[in-house]
């Protein structure tokens, strides 16, 4: 698999760090001069851009949060005049007012290159036909992937999300070889294909590049076996750029290379805000160092992961982030133990070898928290004997205790007993009112 930008993607780490520092300093000077929010927050922290003279000095710079972006809605964080902005995207704003981001011509060029690097890392070449099922519009997924595919020279089918039956026909007739989309939509595609009597194994896909939402290793296994392709994880968020911030390489499928010539990642303890060394798990924080319209400094992503700077078999020198295991917002603290829905998903997969619908319900009686894991009984795990079902409950409960260190009551429920919201199961119900 050719590396799209050999010079930058395989650069020795020392040289990479030198580039990072010089680009960081330029970015800091620019935001200090042009974005009132950053000028104020630097002043409050008693620093100016001149005080930052090494990458270690970064930890003196204050963090930027989602709330800060909301407070500056819509254009308050832009660092260039509107006449230089050529594109605007916005997050969905499902949990508050949306965040708006902008791009200059050069930003779009950078983004296209990084997305092209991602597609190449996932095995795509200029000879591939790419079926892009990410939504086109304010969401960065569709257009981000689209521009990257064009930059790579692949042929893009801009099919967007929805209209699933038509997508299946297009897949059959146009013979795309690379599939892109969110993993949950891809699984939906697979279900619809099955209903239509179309087997993914008869289609021409060799790899799929999926992201924009956290998905577990169990889900990867399910997608790979159902669709008969290599499933590659891609990471990005509109606040940093959109898709293309980091990507797994198809050779290792073990951690996502972050394009460190454009972004500086850090891992912090979400509670103490202290920077953690490589290898430790915490909240991912990003600083952009080449963006013009919407530079972002020490942005708290709320995604939980760890960083690994060890050399990768693919030849890339950029640090790898572990597949995101959850978000600080999804994290449940049950009797002092951190629990993510994705961990329960892994346990169910290991325990029963299939992925049933499940839901975590947390209650508090007195001062004691209790966790109930509801599991829908599908035909695959059903038995006509009570003892088999009770053994299964006991085994899942034991596995949860063993892997997560928290006691949980497992409760078998009927199919569709767990509420769905727009096709997605609601994974967590917290009745504690903390």
């Amino acid at each position, binding site marked *: 698999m050719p590396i799209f930008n050999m010079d930058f993607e395989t650069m020795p780490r020392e040289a990479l760090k030198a580039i990072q520092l010089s680009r960081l300093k330029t970015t800091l000077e620019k935001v200090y001069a042009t974005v009132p929010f950053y000028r104020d927050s630097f002043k409050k922290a008693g620093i100016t851009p001149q005080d930052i003279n090494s990458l270690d000095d970064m930890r003196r710079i204050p963090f930027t949060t989602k709330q800060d972006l909301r407070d500056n809605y819509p254009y308050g964080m832009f660092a260039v005049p509107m006449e230089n902005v050529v594109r605007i995207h916005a997050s969905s704003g499902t949990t508050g007012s949306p965040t708006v981001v902008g791009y200059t011509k050069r930003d779009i060029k950078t983004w296209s290159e990084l997305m092209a690097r991602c597609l190449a890392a996932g095995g795509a070449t200029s000879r591939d036909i790419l079926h892009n099922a990410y939504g086109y519009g304010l969401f960065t997924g569709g257009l981000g992937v689209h521009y990257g595919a064009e930059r790579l020279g692949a042929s893009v089918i801009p099919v967007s999300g929805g209209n699933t039956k038509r997508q299946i026909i297009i897949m059959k007739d146009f013979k795309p070889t690379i599939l892109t989309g969110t993993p949950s939509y891809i699984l939906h595609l697979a279900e619809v294909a099955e209903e239509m009597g179309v087997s993914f194994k008869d289609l021409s896909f060799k790899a799929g590049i999926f992201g924009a939402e956290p998905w577990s290793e169990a889900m990867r296994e399910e997608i790979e076996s159902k669709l008969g392709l290599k499933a590659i994880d891609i990471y990005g968020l509109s606040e940093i750029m959109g898709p293309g911030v980091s990507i797994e390489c198809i050779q290792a499928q073990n951690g996502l290379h972050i394009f460190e010539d454009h972004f500086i990642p850090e891992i912090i303890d979400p509670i103490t805000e202290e920077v953690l060394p490589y290898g430790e798990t915490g909240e991912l924080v990003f600083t952009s160092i080449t963006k013009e319209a919407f530079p972002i400094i020490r942005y708290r992503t709320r995604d939980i992961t760890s960083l690994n700077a060890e050399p990768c078999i693919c030849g890339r020198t950029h640090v790898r982030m572990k597949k995101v295991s959850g978000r600080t917002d999804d994290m449940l603290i049950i009797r002092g133990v951190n629990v993510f829905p994705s961990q329960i998903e892994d346990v169910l997969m290991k325990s029963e070898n299939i992925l049933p619908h499940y839901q975590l319900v947390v209650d508090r009686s007195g001062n004691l928290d209790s966790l109930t894991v509801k599991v829908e*009984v599908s*035909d695959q795990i059903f038995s*006509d004997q009570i003892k088999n*079902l009770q053994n299964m409950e006991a085994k899942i409960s034991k596995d949860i205790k063993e892997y997560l260190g928290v006691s949980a009551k497992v409760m*078998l429920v*009927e*199919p*569709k007993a767990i509420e769905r919201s727009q096709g997605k199961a609601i994974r967590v119900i917290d009745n504690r009112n903390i």
Partner: protein
Amino acid sequence: MRAEQISIFLENKAGRLAEVTAILRDADVNIRALSLADTTDFGILRLIVNDNHRAEEILKKEGFTVGKTNVIAVEVDDNPGGLNQVLDPLTSEGINVEYMYAFANPNRKNAIMIFRFDNIDKAIKILAKNNIAVIKGEDVYNL
């Protein structure tokens, strides 16, 4: 010599059983025999009906989890020791009964027992050796 039984997963809540039987009624499916095994949270309803295929199809369509299991239907004499005549040879050969339930035979003055064994093939052989009448599946469905 086997009969087919369908089993349905039910949450332990009021009215759930009546919903299943109403679905079967509306599909014109007749229940020959049934047993309900329950725990505090859930139950398993096991049924012998006149039309397994129809029952399974309609219940799945209504979103229930439905399983199929092979069981054996045996006629048991209606006098003291009738059940032991069936069980003793099985016990002496180490066959374990997973569960069983009974219903009255409408044609004769005896009972029909439905057995679920851990080793159904061996159980059938032992019953045959001991001249114990096993009722064919179709005959059970059409009683």
